[in-house]
């Protein structure tokens, strides 16, 4: 399940959809990314999230399928917001259910690492000095790269 939307999401609703009374599930791992009020040494008062409609959904679906093939999973749910956000707002949800916790942890982190480096979202933040586009981080590239090195 993949959603790209302006509206906020309900983590509890997502969690329940992951669990859905399926007694084969032994582990649910969820990640929520939140907007911080500070970046690169500056106060950030708001964030605008732009995306490439159509391509975004395709890339997220591709990442989801890669994870489903790589680990033994029951379900992956991804929700990503776009548009105007304020500090402490929820930005992204990734939830994974599996029989085993190792698979659920790995898949959830894998999805986030690839989402960060491959999904066409761009952040523009408002600081006291004006508005600026957020620069990509090398640490995100490294985080995604390590999934190629690992022999799982």
């Amino acid at each position, binding site marked *: 399940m993949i959603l790209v939307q302006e509206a906020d999401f309900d983590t509890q609703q997502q969690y329940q959809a992951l669990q859905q009374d399926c007694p084969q599930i032994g582990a649910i791992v969820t990640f929520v990314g939140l907007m911080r009020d500070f970046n690169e040494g500056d106060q950030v008062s708001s964030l605008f999230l*732009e995306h490439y409609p159509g391509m975004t959904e395709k890339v997220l679906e591709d990442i989801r399928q890669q994870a489903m093939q790589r680990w033994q999973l029951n379900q992956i749910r991804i929700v*990503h917001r776009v548009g105007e956000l304020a500090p402490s707002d929820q930005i992204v949800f990734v939830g994974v259910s599996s029989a085993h916790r190792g698979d659920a942890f790995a898949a959830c982190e894998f999805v986030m690492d690839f989402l960060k480096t491959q999904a066409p979202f761009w952040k523009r933040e408002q600081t006291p000095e004006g508005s600026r586009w957020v*620069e990509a981080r090398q640490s995100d590239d490294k985080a995604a790269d390590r999934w190629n090195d690992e022999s799982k």
Partner: protein
Amino acid sequence: MNMPKSLSLRFFARLRDDLNTSEESLVLPEQVTTVEELKQYLCLRGDNWQAALNTPGLFAAVEQKVVDWDTPLEGHEEVAFFPPVTGG
């Protein structure tokens, strides 16, 4: 001989700001056959195009999929250019 074909171009984020355009429709000259050639062709439009497009780290997507610069344009309808992604 192929009919001249119209291509939809899209620009995102900083690139869209710098070029002051998000979308346009373009009829390709015959000699422009790859994504790299399309980029160089657009750079001819002026200094701001040159500055915005000839920059390290730029990505190109064809039919909403990131591609290498030598990807042929033939048979495709949508090409996008954008800076590194910063979502999540």
